């Protein structure tokens, strides 16, 4: 259905615009640019809506885990609808609030920091394959691109901490910088494992090399790397139990303590967008992406044939997103030296050892994964 809408728009809106407004030489290029913009919107708008409702889901899920109800008042047209209007009310509230720039702060960097933290987490969606064909940029080095962009998110945090001219914000930024550098190495090694197993850096090829059944997915041969990737993702997104950069009981709110209104909410959106990104990447690299879990199962395979492949990707992603919330409600915050120990002394050695194991499995053509 999305393709039909897309075709309709590009035929009946974009084509006339370019033919009327531009000379013949530039029409084809301009059409490509406009079509790409439409595609970008069709990815980003659902992502941002998911971000908004992810905050609602978090409050509901943690509420239920703790025996509360969560937000249940704000709805639409006089109906409360289990509080479904809450994210929109929050967004409107934050939009109309004043952004206060503290005295003695570095004004330009202070405003730039939230943008710098949100932009990479949205730009990474360019290479995410939703389907065998549905991907914005099917580039060869997709995995590297994703790793590079997720490593950029730390700049927003560091610059926010420094530009705020506040002790608490600065402490949060320092904590976050050291933590993210530590966990990025483990994350990178986990991705090297995926690269070795799939033999390609292209995310679509990585999914296609997991075709078969649930047991062909990479979560079995790469199980330690799978776990380490997800935990490093928790640490990279500054989520509980690794949320020492915010640490509200120690340093108030950490790096964004001086931010208010929309500037704060952009940080908030960046955190949730990063969580969704880590979830979708875990699904793609270790759990078969858009592949159906019933593949290879005699009766169920035909029974679920009508389900679009994108549904499976979204279902797997939702599961990982739920894990983020579940962890937050379950685990107490790590102590800082233990975070460092876990990253440097536990995860990195395990990933290096498992890289050797994966290489051995690949070289010996161990079935059913590496035939």
């Amino acid at each position: 259905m999305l393709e039909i809408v897309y075709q309709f728009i590009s035929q009946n809106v974009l084509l006339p615009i370019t033919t009327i407004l531009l000379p013949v030489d530039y029409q084809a290029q301009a059409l490509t640019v406009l079509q790409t913009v439409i595609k970008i919107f069709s990815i980003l708008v659902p992502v941002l809506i998911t971000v908004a409702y992810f905050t609602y889901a978090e409050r509901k899920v943690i509420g239920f885990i703790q025996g509360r109800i969560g937000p249940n008042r704000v709805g639409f047209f006089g109906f409360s609808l289990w509080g479904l209007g809450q994210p929109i009310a929050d967004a409107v509230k934050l939009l109309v609030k004043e952004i206060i720039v503290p005295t003695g702060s570095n004004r330009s960097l202070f405003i730039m920091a939230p943008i710098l933290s949100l932009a990479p987490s949205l730009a990474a969606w360019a290479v995410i394959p939703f389907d065998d064909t549905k991907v914005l940029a099917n580039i060869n080095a997709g995995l590297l691109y994703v790793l590079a962009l997720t490593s950029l998110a730390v700049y927003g945090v560091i610059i926010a901490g420094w530009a705020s001219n506040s002790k608490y914000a600065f402490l949060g930024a320092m904590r976050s910088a050291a933590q993210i550098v530590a966990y990025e190495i483990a994350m990178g090694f986990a991705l090297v494992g995926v690269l070795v197993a799939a033999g390609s850096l292209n995310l679509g090829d990585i999914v296609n090399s997991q075709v078969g059944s649930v047991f062909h997915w990479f979560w079995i041969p790469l199980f330690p790397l799978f776990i380490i990737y997800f935990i490093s993702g928790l640490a990279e997104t500054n989520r509980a139990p690794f949320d020492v950069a915010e640490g509200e009981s120690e340093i108030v709110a950490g790096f964004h303590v001086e931010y208010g209104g929309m500037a704060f909410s952009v940080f908030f959106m960046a955190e949730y967008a990063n969580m969704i990104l880590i979830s979708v990447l875990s699904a793609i690299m270790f759990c078969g992406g858009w592949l159906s879990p019933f593949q290879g199962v005699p009766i169920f395979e035909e029974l679920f044939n009508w389900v679009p492949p994108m549904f499976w990707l979204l279902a797997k992603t939702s599961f990982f997103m739920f894990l983020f919330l579940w962890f937050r409600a379950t685990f107490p915050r790590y102590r800082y030296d233990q975070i460092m120990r876990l990253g440097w002394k536990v995860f990195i050695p395990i990933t290096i050892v498992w890289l050797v194991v994966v290489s051995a499995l690949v070289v010996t053509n161990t079935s059913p994964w590496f035939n």
Partner: protein
Amino acid sequence: MIEQIVFYFFGGVLLLSASMVVIMRNPIHSALLLVLSFFASAAIWLLLQAEFLAITLVLVYVGAVMVLFLFVVMMLDINLVTVREGFTRFLPVGITVAVLMVAAMGLVVSSDYFMSDTYMVIKSIGPDYSNTKELGLILYTQYLYQFEIAGAILLVAIIAAISLSMSKSKVNKSISSEEQVIVKKTDRLRVIEMKAESNIQSKKI
């Protein structure tokens, strides 16, 4: 045509940001502008279809090295007055070094090594061409020894850095996380059974 626009845009950004790194007074701004110049040069490499090198530049230098740079620079207490104090005193030395470097770079870039006088059109290669694969193949076949030697040198550097940063003081009171993690309830807590004192109830309050 679009390639040329993109090239001149990023080339301009690269030159501007690289010179601003030197000009800016605040070291944090300098570090951030250095990040920007890394980005611009990565974009130029992308134009040359060297996607592996371009993304690795961003990943390694922007994602890791510059984060640590910023980490250190932010800790510094910089007094701008003392920084500018020696400007006139070091100006002659600075100009000499700058002239020497410009001359050396001019020699290298204009010489035959670079073939910069012969403009080469980039061969347009199909989308199936993987820069990463080609690099890997050539590194592990033709340049295997050089690659392994570079790896060994880096390993030595890692070991040296770790041994330098290890604290050798005897009064180190740091706690061992391993001991803390493996501790059991029975190690810390002892449940003792003891008789209740018999004459409590008989006491008059």
